[in-house]
Every structure is written in structure tokens, then in C-alpha cells.
């Protein structure tokens, strides 16, 4: 579903990604962990070209994003993204947030789009909040609307960029639960997170990144149970201690 070949990204003189290779199979849930500043988010943002890589190739569902002939807008329709800070449109209600892209990009009628939106709102447990504005919702509710908004485009892949990092602790669970359901339904997902419990329970594969490289990868049992890399051991001892 996603293929990444020798991906490099540089901000000026700072090398953020130094040659990433990876493959994400359909229906697979890949979780990326690593210390902050390791390039996890940049890597994720390169997968839909919100960040343009300096070199290397990204292929999504057989389409190379690096190819100048590729219509990035078309590719992005198939790749949903959820952000750390939700990024809901504050001037629109939850419902309007969800139906905007299906109507304007996919060309659905308002009725069709609303049908999808209401079923997604039900799915994330927010049927009663359809007409609420983002600032009337809690962080956890906003993030669930953001997930519904991304799903409304019926994407083939979902990218999550630290979706629970900006939430109060008591709201983390509700968002993770929605993501867990999504994984169970077979959605292909790439998740950058600090939630080790989620990585262990839901991830099919865990990638450990540090200083712009993938230093270790494998099933969560192995990565957490029997870490090979020195830095991964140090990282795990830091995050699991607390």
C-alpha cells in the first residue's frame, strides 16, 4: 500500500530524515515510536507530501508521489490525516467540517455527504454534536470529529500524527478507542505516537526511529520484549519507567 525508498529530508543544513526505507501492507497498522526530534512527524508528513522530501521516493497504492505527472490532490484524497492539534475548521460545525471535502472535492451532493457524515459521527460517538462548533467541544471530541472528517473521504490509508499528544489525559482513551475500532475494521494505518500501550496492543509492526533513521522494526512483542538496539533500550527504559 505504501512504499518508501531511501527518503531524505533536509531543512537547510539540518538533516531530518537520512534514508528511510519501509513498506506498509494493506490492512496493516504500523506504529512509529522514537524520541522527539527523531523525524517521526516529518516522515509521516512526507507520506502525503505535506512536506516535500529532499530526495527518495514515496509510492502510494502504486502511484509515485515524486513523479511530476502525479496529481497530489488526487493522492491526498485517498490518504486521510489526523493532526496533533486537530486542525478542525473553527468557522464550521462538526457536520460542516466533515461534509466540506466530500462535497467540494469528491463532488457529492449535500444529502449524500451528510448521510456519510452522520454515520461517521455515530461511529465516533458524537451523533449529538453534529451542530456544535469546534470551540464548544472538548479536545477528545474535536479529535474524534477530525478522525470522522478524514474518514469521510473514504481513504485507503490513515496517517495519525501524535493524535493524543495535545489531549488531557482523561480524553486519550476515547480517541484511542476510535482508532482501535478502525484498526479492527482493517484500515491501513500509520501512527506516530507516544502511547506505548496502543503500540503494543494495536500495532502489527513497530518502527523505532532516531536521528532520521529507522533503527529497529518488528512486531510489538519483539520490539518491546527483546529490543536489540542500544538506543531503543534506552528509549524504552525512559518511557516505560513513568
Amino acid at each position: 500500500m505504501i512504499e518508501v525508498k531511501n527518503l531524505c529530508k533536509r531543512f537547510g543544513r539540518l538533516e531530518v530524515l537520512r534514508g528511510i526505507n519501509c513498506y506498509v501492507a494493506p490492512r496493516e497498522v504500523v506504529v512509529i515510536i522514537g524520541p522527539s526530534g527523531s523525524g517521526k512527524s516529518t516522515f509521516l508528513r512526507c507520506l502525503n507530501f505535506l512536506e516535500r522530501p529532499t530526495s527518495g521516493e514515496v509510492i502510494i497504492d502504486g502511484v509515485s508521489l515524486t513523479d511530476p505527472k502525479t496529481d497530489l490532490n488526487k493522492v491526498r484524497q485517498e490518504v486521510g490525516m489526523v493532526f496533533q492539534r486537530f486542525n478542525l475548521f473553527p468557522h464550521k460545525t462538526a457536520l460542516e467540517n466533515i461534509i466540506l471535502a466530500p462535497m467540494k472535492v469528491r463532488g457529492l451532493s449535500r444529502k449524500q455527504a451528510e448521510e456519510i457524515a452522520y454515520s461517521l459521527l455515530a461511529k465516533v460517538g458524537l451523533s449529538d454534536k453534529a451542530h456544535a462548533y469546534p470551540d464548544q467541544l472538548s479536545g477528545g471530541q474535536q479529535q474524534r470529529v477530525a478522525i470522522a472528517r478524514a474518514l469521510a473521504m473514504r481513504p485507503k490509508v490513515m496517517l495519525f500524527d501524535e493524535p493524543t499528544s495535545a489531549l488531557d489525559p482523561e480524553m486519550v482513551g476515547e480517541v484511542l478507542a476510535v482508532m482501535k475500532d478502525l484498526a479492527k475494521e482493517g484500515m491501513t494505518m500509520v501512527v506516530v505516537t507516544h502511547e506505548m500501550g496502543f503500540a503494543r496492543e494495536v500495532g502489527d509492526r513497530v518502527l523505532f526511529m532516531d536521528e532520521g533513521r529507522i533503527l529497529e522494526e518488528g512486531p510489538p512483542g519483539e520490539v518491546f520484549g527483546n529490543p536489540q538496539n542500544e538506543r531503543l533500550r534506552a528509549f524504552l527504559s525512559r518511557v516505560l519507567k513513568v
Partner: protein
Amino acid sequence: METVIHSLPVLLLGAVKTLQITTISVFIGCILGLAAGLARLSQRRILRFLATCYVDFIRGTPLLVQVVIVYFGIPQVLREIQSYLVNAYGITPFFKNIPVFLAAVIACSLNSGAYVAEIFRAGIQSIDKGQMEAARSLGMTHGQAMRYVILPQAFKRVIPPLGNEFIALLKDTSVLSVIGFEELFRRGQLIVGATYQAFQIYLTVAFIYLVMVIAFSRLVDYLERRLKTGD
């Protein structure tokens, strides 16, 4: 005092003209300003360059100079072109001067457009980067993201500074007196010329400006408060 009362109707008609020219110019300025503001943020170098030239030229020169260029300078060039055409092709001359009202509208609109461009640019740039990213991640084009996500939010933030631009131009239209446009200040000048009551008349003129400005700044304050609650 009697002179003041007698000249009040004339001055108030001048104030109406002042309001007229300001409203028309800020309205056209908004259209020009939106275009120039977007151009300044464009990916295309040439658009950015042209918009920057326009904004810098207008903001870097006095309105008074712009007004005389439009009213005296441009027609001179047009007349010279015309006389060339008359000699070369024998067409009958038809152009003599720009009507003073048209010149006033052109100069003030161009002037206002440059200031409004900066207001729009700042308004658009004040919207969180995540909004554009979220819109693009849903597959919207840059244009769609601007139209449905960024601009509606920017418009709200831009209303108070646009109100201030209106107030600034309202006062600055007094320079139109140099081309004989009979707005409030020009009418004051004419009355003083006939009555020699400079103190009373100019004070009255100042007072009328003050009333208009205060009324508008109250209106802007009110809009600002209402928009805050509706955010």
C-alpha cells in the same frame, strides 16, 4: 456664528461627497486589495513582484502626489498620444480632461487598494498553518483551501483594520481639494475665501470630520465585539 449657520448646508453637502468618495474608493480598494494581497502570497514570482511594486509605490508616496499624477499627469500623456493619432491618422480629437470625480475615484481606490492588500495579507497569514494543511490533506487544491477554509476566517479578522482604513481615507480625501473636488474641506476653503471667517469655518469643518470619524470608529468597535462573540 451666523456665517457658520448659513454655510452649514453647503458644508454638509460636502461631507456627503466626502463619504461618497470614501465609500466607493474603499469598496473598489477592497477588490483591488484582495487581488493584490493574494498576489503577494502567490507561488508565482511575477505576481508577487508586481503586487509588491504596486503596494510599495502607493505606500511610499503621498496621496497628494498620487492625486495630481492621476488628474494632471496621466491626461497630459493621453493628450499627447491623441495629438499623435490626430496627426498620423486624422482622427478627430475627443479627449480633453479626466472628470474630477473620476480622477478622485481612481486615485483614492488605487491608494486604498495598496493598504487593503496589506490588511488582507496579514489577515491570511494570521490563520494557523494547520488549517491549510488540514484542507490540503483532504485533497483540496490550494484555491479550494483558500476559498472555503482560509478566506472565510481571514475576512472576520480583517473587518476591524478595514474599518480603520476607511477612517484614515475619510480624513485623507481632504487632499482632493487640490484638484478642485468639492468635498468637505474644499467647500470650507471656498467659503473662507468669500467670508474671511477662517477660524469659524475651518473649526466647523474639523468638527464635521470629527463627528463622522467618531461615528465610524464606534461602528467598528461594535462589529469587532460582535465578531469576537461569534468566533
